């Protein structure tokens, strides 16, 4: 089967840049990806672009062709919307089409402009990832939804806010020196516990920031890389997707994320590996509890045991399986539509050895990206390996 290689990656700095348009952000990230890939724009056969709230933040629908133009690419382009998993979904489509020999060179990425909406406006925009009738109308915000899951987790399996605080502290530590990260500032457990509440039991430091940013990847087939002398040592060897009921109320368990289990199982089978083979992971920690749920669904921990992972030091840079060496959504930032392919960009650099945290995973061969939408009604998992 044709293998999918990451030829180049590009990221803007994630942060507060309210005046930058989505097209400017994606233009910058894609330019960086082309420079990194050394692949000519003219070879791109299609663009797959993830974006969630463009209608609300920029009154802009139909962003596919706009973003191809912004990237300087004359190729057909489609926007993918799957809430916070939008660019993960775009990526999966690209991986499949390269493997199917439909195309050999694809630009995939995403962007989100958010901070121009302000906190209340961005909170309202993020809420639409939930069920409008049953959740949004009841005043359930995005942090509120994860707070409901966190409370259910504490009641069902134990753990407390201090356990969650260690997730935030770890991810802030990891972001130190990552030039793309929104926060490059250490925090301690008491900072998290004493921060103002957002939706109890979650506080300000349990939550990812509101961010502007973009990410882009140039993906090529192994045949193209060989014929054109493209240096692309990292492959995407597994892809998986899972889904669940939209509203929390309709799910069997309030503190489990089976869409992630399904996506992981499919991606592991596709790559021919298991959870024990994963050396490090970037997981979707939009809130501290989300990282815990991800660790359990990915098979790194049994249900109810993931909550102490950060506190025990098992997921830190020095731990057995470092998680979110980029800083994660928590400290690196979460420009929603950019996040899925941003994780893949970070993993590519970590595996190539040109990431600020590469030394923490010097012998690593397998990385995993976990990208979730809403309260994990959508989930994409990708396995990445060093192959050349």
């Amino acid at each position, binding site marked *: 089967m044709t293998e999918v290689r990451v030829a180049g990656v590009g990221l803007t700095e994630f942060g507060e840049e309210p005046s930058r348009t989505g097209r400017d952000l994606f233009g910058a990230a894609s330019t960086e990806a082309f420079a990194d890939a050394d692949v000519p724009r003219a070879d791109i056969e299609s663009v797959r672009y993830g974006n969630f709230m463009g209608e609300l933040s920029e009154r802009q629908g139909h962003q596919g062709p706009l973003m191809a133009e912004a990237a300087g690419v004359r190729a057909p382009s489609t926007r993918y919307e799957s809430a916070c998993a939008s660019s993960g979904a775009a990526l999966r489509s690209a991986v499949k089409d390269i493997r199917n020999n439909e195309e050999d060179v694809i630009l995939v990425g995403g962007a989100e402009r958010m901070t121009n909406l302000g*906190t*209340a*406006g961005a*909170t*309202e925009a993020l*809420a639409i990832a939930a069920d*409008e*009738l*049953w*959740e*949004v*109308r*009841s*005043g*359930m*915000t995005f*942090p*509120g939804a994860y*707070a*409901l*899951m966190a*409370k*259910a987790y504490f*009641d069902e399996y134990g753990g407390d806010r201090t356990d969650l605080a260690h997730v935030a502290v770890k991810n802030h530590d990891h972001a130190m020196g990552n030039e793309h990260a929104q926060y490059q500032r250490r925090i301690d457990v008491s900072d998290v516990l004493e921060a*103002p*509440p*957002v*939706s*109890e*039991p*979650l506080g300000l430091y349990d939550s990812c920031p509101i961010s502007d940013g973009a990410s882009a990847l140039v993906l090529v087939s192994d045949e193209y890389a060989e014929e054109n002398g493209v240096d692309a040592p990292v492959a995407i060897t597994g892809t998986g997707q899972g889904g669940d*009921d939209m*509203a*929390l*109320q*309709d799910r069997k368990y*309030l503190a489990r994320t089976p869409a992630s289990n399904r996506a992981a199982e499919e991606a592991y089978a596709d790559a021919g590996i298991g959870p024990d083979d994963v050396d490090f992971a970037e997981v979707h920690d939009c809130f501290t509890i989300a990282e815990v749920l991800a660790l359990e669904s990915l098979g790194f921990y049994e249900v109810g045991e993931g909550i102490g992972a950060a506190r025990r030091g098992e997921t830190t840079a020095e731990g057995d399986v470092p998680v979110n060496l980029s800083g994660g959504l928590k400290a690196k930032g979460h420009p929603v539509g950019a996040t899925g392919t941003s994780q893949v960009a970070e993993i590519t650099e970590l595996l190539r050895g040109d990431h600020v945290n590469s030394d923490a995973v010097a012998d690593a061969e397998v990385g995993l990206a976990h990208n979730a939408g809403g309260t994990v009604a959508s989930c994409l998992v990708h396995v990445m390996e060093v192959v050349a």
Partner: protein
Amino acid sequence: MSDESSHSAGTGVRDDGYDDLLDAVEDGSGYYLECANGHGSVPPRRVCPDCGTDDLTETPLPESGEIETYTVTHVATPSFSEDTPYVTAIARFGAVRVTGQIRNIDPDNVEEGLPVELTTARSEAGTERFLGFRPR
């Protein structure tokens, strides 16, 4: 119910199924949808989300439910900015769970397992109707 008591988001138009259930709750006759295979769900539904059958029957909800999880929200969307802090909860009523708010209660008095009955509620800003829970 008068037209102004029930709006879909921003359009001023009723949402069939959803508003019908809220009307029924206000009349003290709340129901859920029970499929021929015994699965429960809440409207609007054409088919059972579990098995796909379109054989759905409106079955009375129990009068009393139980809070399964809740959160006290301090940072709200503009629609709820006058309501903070407020309690959003998920409660089980027999075969289904529903999401709503417990209004007019000290958040410290909410706990898992709290018995509640259904009502409807509105934000202080007042346009959209949603489910409420009242301690029993």
